[in-house]
């Protein structure tokens, strides 16, 4: 087990990338701490799988280095990296029994038979397949096969990291929850570094201690679920995380106030001058709907069970607000923004406030 460092890394699938757009992964430096449980979150096609395949050595990066601890493994073969990876779609060795499938990575490492038998039984119990160990893997259902793939990924105790590439796509919802819980238990028990790729934010937020959000080949933010929610570093994080996503409104910033077409909104912090397209971002959770505040138009109200979502228009821009349980939309609704919860963005990147007033 070791810390994984990506240094100056970039990758393009083209032989001679000319512009930034040709890179599937833009240049990045990133460190995955030993024993961390990470979720790699992002829309389809943002480079998550590429990044994973570079770590496991299935893809060689066009530039930069990959380090396991202090060892440079950029040119090392996948098999030399001792790393486990579970793919989106099940891969099983058809002609082998379930038992042999699970034992395969251990046998390839030349472990002794008694240890293999013990370990395979343990893993079989974990994935709930101990009663089917002796049957052929061929002809099993897709989710049974994927459980075998997961089991094969977890069977080695000494791996440097376990990488999961949207592994639960083909698993049914009930089992999904259970397997995810087991992955967390496994992490707690053995402390493997785990990187879990997904485009499902619930999955990411429940699995990981740290979530890494990728957008168009870049890591735009790494943080705890709370950090991603409260202070998204990029507008993409703002709208990708949270349901519904963060509201973004064009504004001009002077000091501690944002000006929205003649209306001033206090920001709760002081900002320096901004350049480029300036927006303020506020979570629907922090937009209050009452009979005081700024005028806006309610388009519709969606009931999602625990709370209701108000879909509205404010100064010609779409806006969502969350209405807590028990409250209702007044006859002449007005909205307010919770001051400390507003983030400022210049060209999609978050602007740090110069001073934060004490106690705000």
């Amino acid at each position: 087990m070791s810390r994984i460092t990506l240094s100056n890394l970039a990758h393009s699938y083209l032989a001679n990338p000319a512009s930034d757009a040709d890179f599937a992964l833009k240049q990045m430096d990133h460190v995955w701490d030993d024993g961390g449980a990470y979720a790699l979150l992002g829309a389809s096609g943002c480079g998550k799988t590429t990044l994973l395949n570079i770590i496991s050595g299935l893809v060689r990066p066009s530039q930069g280095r990959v380090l396991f601890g202090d060892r440079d493994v950029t040119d090392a073969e996948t098999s030399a990296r001792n790393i486990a990876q579970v793919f989106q779609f099940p891969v099983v060795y058809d002609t082998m029994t379930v038992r042999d499938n699970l034992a395969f990575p251990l046998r390839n490492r030349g472990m002794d038979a008694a240890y293999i038998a013990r370990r395979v039984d343990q893993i079989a119990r974990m994935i709930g397949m101990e009663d089917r160990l002796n049957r052929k893997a061929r002809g099993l259902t897709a989710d049974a096969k994927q459980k075998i793939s997961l089991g094969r990924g977890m069977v080695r105790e000494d791996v440097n990291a376990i990488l999961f590439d949207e592994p639960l796509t083909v698993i049914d919802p009930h089992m999904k929850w259970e397997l995810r819980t087991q992955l967390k238990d496994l992490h707690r028990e053995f402390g493997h570094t785990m990187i879990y790729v997904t485009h499902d934010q619930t999955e990411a937020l429940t699995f990981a201690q740290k979530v890494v959000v990728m957008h168009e080949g870049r890591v735009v933010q790494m943080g705890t679920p709370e950090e991603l929610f409260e202070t998204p570093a990029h507008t993409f994080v703002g709208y990708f995380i949270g349901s519904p996503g963060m509201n973004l409104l064009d504004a001009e910033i002077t000091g501690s106030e944002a000006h929205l077409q003649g209306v001033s909104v206090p920001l709760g912090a002081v900002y320096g001058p901004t350049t480029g397209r300036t927006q303020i971002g506020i979570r629907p959770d922090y937009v209050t709907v009452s009979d005081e505040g700024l005028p806006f138009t309610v388009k519709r109200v969606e009931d999602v069970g625990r709370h209701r979502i108000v879909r509205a228009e404010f100064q010609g821009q779409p806006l969502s607000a969350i209405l807590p349980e028990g409250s209702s939309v007044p006859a002449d609704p007005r909205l307010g923004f919770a001051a400390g919860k507003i983030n400022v963005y210049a060209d999609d990147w978050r602007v740090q406030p110069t001073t934060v007033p004490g106690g705000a």
Partner: protein
Amino acid sequence: MEKTQNNKAWFLVLPVLVLVAFSAVLPLMTVVNYSVNDTFGNNEFFWTGLEWFEEMVTSDRLWDAFGRQMLFSGIILLIQIPLGIFIALNMPKSGFWASFCLVLMALPLLIPFNVVGTIWQIFGRVDIGLLGHTLAAMGIDYNYTNDPLDAWITVVVMDVWHWTSLVALLCYAGLQSIPQAYYQAARIDQATRWSVFRYIELPKMKGVLLIAILLRFMDSFMIYTEPFVVTGGGPGSATTFLSIDLAKMATGQFDLGPAAAFSLMYFLVILLISWVFYTVMVNMDREDAK
């Protein structure tokens, strides 16, 4: 609900039935007719019953030819199947060289059988053939017209040259259908090259491989033209395989009765072996799914 019973659709099969009757069933029945009669021409037939069959079953000549035939089919399967797999594994997977190899591999398959025979007949000649002359110049005593072993080697090498491509192309198609994820998973699992072949490539190739074996067996078991052109069945009867022997008997010696009995048994043997093979194939498939 009452279903209308209408079996008129069967009439649609009639043309095929007629065609097959004329092209296969009737000629076959003629052979059956010859096999149970003796004739001296003039369409006069004398009933002999199973005499010809008895004569053929006890004929040393036939058993010798059968033995040579089995040996030949065995040898070429043992060479062509592994060699075909090996070539398929080493062919480029995509790009210009993949197409180039495919065309190159397909070439021998496009050459008419008797031309293949002629090519090797000349190629192997000691006086003017490139192969024969080169070997002779190197001091190797090679002469396929005198030496039975040289004749066998020539015929086997010619068949390998002619047909290994078929096995390779079939295997290549099987290999191409394996998703990349399997190879990636194997690398993650630290599988050796042998394990990748044994547990990924071979199982995925099994279907096409069985077809390749069946085709190659049937074809080689009926081989006639190429060895006939090269060696004419000789020296002596060293390369007289079943078909060649049959043709000698039927058109050379004009022994129509024995030849007909012979060909019927020949046909049944091929049918039997193919059926056994097919059954084994299907059973293996079923067992795997358990």
